[in-house]
């Protein structure tokens, strides 16, 4: 799709090329990713593997009971890791935008 001189297809191609060429873009997002992985592992250690339980519809009651019994813990985990994750996500986004801006200026 092109809007006057903005071609979304070209921008998507350019973005994928930048990400593949420069691992720094991935590296910036490793920080929030690690937080989310730690959160998931923490949840898994306490309440088990929700993903494998949710594959089987017969386990719906079991999942409901599991969530009900651990609701305060789950909320605490989501808030705690959620806030840390958002902070690191903001750091990654700000760094990435600046990096793209600087590199585009250098290419001119």
């Amino acid at each position, binding site marked *: *799709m092109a*809007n*006057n*001189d*903005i071609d*979304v297809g070209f*921008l*998507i191609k*350019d*973005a*994928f090329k*930048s*990400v593949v060429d420069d691992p*720094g*873009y*991935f*590296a*910036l*997002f*490793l920080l*929030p*990713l690690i937080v*989310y*992985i730690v959160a*998931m592992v923490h949840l898994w250690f306490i309440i088990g*593997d929700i*993903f*494998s339980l949710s*594959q089987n519809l017969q386990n719906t009651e079991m999942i409901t009971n599991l969530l009900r019994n651990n609701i305060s813990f789950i909320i605490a985990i989501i808030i705690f890791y959620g806030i840390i994750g*958002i*902070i690191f*996500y*903001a*750091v*990654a*986004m*700000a*760094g*990435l*935008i*600046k*990096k*793209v*801006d*600087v*590199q*585009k*200026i250098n290419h001119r």
Partner: protein
Amino acid sequence: MSFSEALSFSFNSFPRFFSAMLLWALILYGPLIGLILLMVLGVTSNLTGLICLSTFLLIIICILIIYIYLRLALFMQACVIENISPVDSLKRSWIITKGNVILIFVTILIIGIIGLVITIPFTIASNAGVPFILPIGMFLNFIIMSPVQAIIFTLIYLKLIKKQTSPPLYPQYQKSY
């Protein structure tokens, strides 16, 4: 610009950037949370009129939220690139996306479809009984699509400010793009 330089910049501009994010979240989700609380109040006190009113308002608010989301989609880029305050970055995004809502909507749609395509094999494998494959797919989707989306939006922002014909809102910050 190296990884460490980018990280150092983002830590320095963090308070301003994070404030902009909080303000954006408040504008987008504040009314939604209020309405959901109103709906919960209606359900708990069994007031049918209140439930109907809050449901109707919720539909209208959801449509409005989508539109506002598209108009404010470039506030992060405005905040970082033009080095402006959180309120000004939201204003800047609102001005710069005028007449480009469809472009941003289509971009988000395409990014969403690509993300979905990345996740599909992991969902299929997970349904086939492969353990831990779904979280791996989700993390992979996050690590690939987050930078891609941010780069695309930054490129769109740079192109939009380049072709902007109206006088710049903040000439002191305007670069020679």
